[in-house]
């Protein structure tokens, strides 16, 4: 069963709720290797997104995702704003005009979003950034679908991969973002952006799964 517009909007709201719930936690992680604002910033942005939801065109998933992206760009600031903004903007372009998404549509949109983040931020896998959670998530959903998994299964594996990527950032020495200023002292800390990206994929698995499964 394809992902409906309604499910995508549920996902955005679930992500907003997860960010709100983990506001202190994300800020905590950012205070260890950054500047103690990631949770605050992302929460400010996602709350603004909630305010814009209804105003978005009520059938076009692409339009919805673009609204989310534009709102994040103009309300989050920091590195997180342009990066998450770009993620949603590119997903929106990929899903433009669609009122529901097949498994491959979802995988394409996510891949386009992550590619956008990499173009904007120039981070490689292993730089201790959100990329370390996002890239494995894309690969996982793709191979799951290729192996004939259901979308629900693919979303679950994608979220797991994001979580794995997130925990894998702990030993890493940051090469991008504010954490890179710490050099070796950035090791042994989990990257805040990778953590918020895991929340993004986890809530996707929770909300985009077929209602009748």
């Amino acid at each position, binding site marked *: 069963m394809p992902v409906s517009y309604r499910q995508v909007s549920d996902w955005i709201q679930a992500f907003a709720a997860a960010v709100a719930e983990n506001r202190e936690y994300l*800020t905590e992680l950012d*205070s260890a*290797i*950054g*500047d*103690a*604002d990631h949770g*605050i*910033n992302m929460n*400010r942005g996602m709350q603004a997104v909630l305010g814009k939801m209804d105003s978005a065109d009520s059938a076009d998933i692409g339009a919805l995702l673009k609204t989310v992206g534009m709102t994040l*760009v*103009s*309300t*989050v*600031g*920091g*590195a*997180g*704003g*342009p*990066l998450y903004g770009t993620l949603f903007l590119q997903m929106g372009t990929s899903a433009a005009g669609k009122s529901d998404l097949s498994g491959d549509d979802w995988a394409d949109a996510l891949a386009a979003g992550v590619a956008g983040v990499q173009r*904007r*931020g120039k981070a490689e896998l292993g730089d201790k950034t959100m990329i370390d959670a996002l890239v494995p998530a894309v690969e996982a959903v793709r191979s799951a679908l290729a192996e004939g998994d259901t979308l629900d299964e693919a979303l679950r594996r994608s979220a797991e991969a994001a979580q794995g990527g997130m925990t894998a950032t702990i030993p890493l020495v*940051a*090469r*991008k*973002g*504010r954490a*890179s*200023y*710490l*050099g070796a*002292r950035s090791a042994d800390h989990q990257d805040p952006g990778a953590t918020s990206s895991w929340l993004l994929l986890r809530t996707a698995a929770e909300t985009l799964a077929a209602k009748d499964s």
Partner: protein
Amino acid sequence: MKKLINDPADVVKEALQGVAEAHADRLRVMTDPNVVVRADAPVQGKVGLVSGGGSGHEPMHGGFVGVGMLDAACPGEVFTSPTPDQMLAATKAVNGGAGVLHIVKNYTGDVLNFEMAADLARDEKIEVEAVVIDDDVAVQDSLYTAGRRGVGATVLAEKICGAAAEQRRPLGEVAELCRKVNANSRSMGMALTSCTVPAAGKPTFELGATEIEIGIGIHGEPGRERRQIAPARDIVGMLATPIVDDLPFQSGDRVLAFVNSMGGTPLIELYIVYNDLYRFLADRGIEISRNLIGPYITSLEMQGCSITLLKLDDELTALWDAPVNTPGLRWGA
């Protein structure tokens, strides 16, 4: 958290209202998106200077808007870079037909947001150049990382480029000058205490009763190393040695010495630091021909200081001496 604030969520908004009420003679404060702009902007035929960054570094940047310095500043949330829509609004507001220079501190957030803004401005046919300031020697530079942070040199670049823009120099020249200031500046800071982001409510990091952080960032990012408190002259050595070695500054050089308070360190201590820096440089044959001493690029209430040295030539000296009239920096006007 004890601060003179109301709701932590309103800190930036209310501080900007205060700025608007206090400096209506020189500044205009636009809201959503937040931009502090010269009252007489846009100045026809003059390159517009736009900077911006997280709030909490006052007087930088909003306090440097005015004749002879910035045309506009984009204040982000505390320690959070502003957003492209603010930068676009600022760019449009100050575009007097001669193009706009974005002075960007090298933080991923600032760089990415200013990049997005520059793309949007160019879409609207505004000529934009961006110069990234990265003078902090506390951070090892490398092609594979985010590179050095932009700190004290930003203040000097904004003043000097502002003077050049008042002379109606073209965008390319002002941008080149900005790169020259950055290339000839080096900085390093230290903290005696942490600082508390109002929305976070607790100190960004913890320092023991006798600990200091050498190489601190202006957002409370941990620095190079943690040490025990030492006499001011030793701390000056810890900051000034990597600065002097990096450029390098050499015997016979004339410099502008900028001794900056992180926000919570009072002037009496800055003058002691300046005295020790003066001797440190004199021992190396480096002459201080201009100075700036005070809280100009701060980290909320953090106690500590930073040192910035800019190697001067006659051009930079003359532009530094040119009149400036902003709430945060003023002379000759």
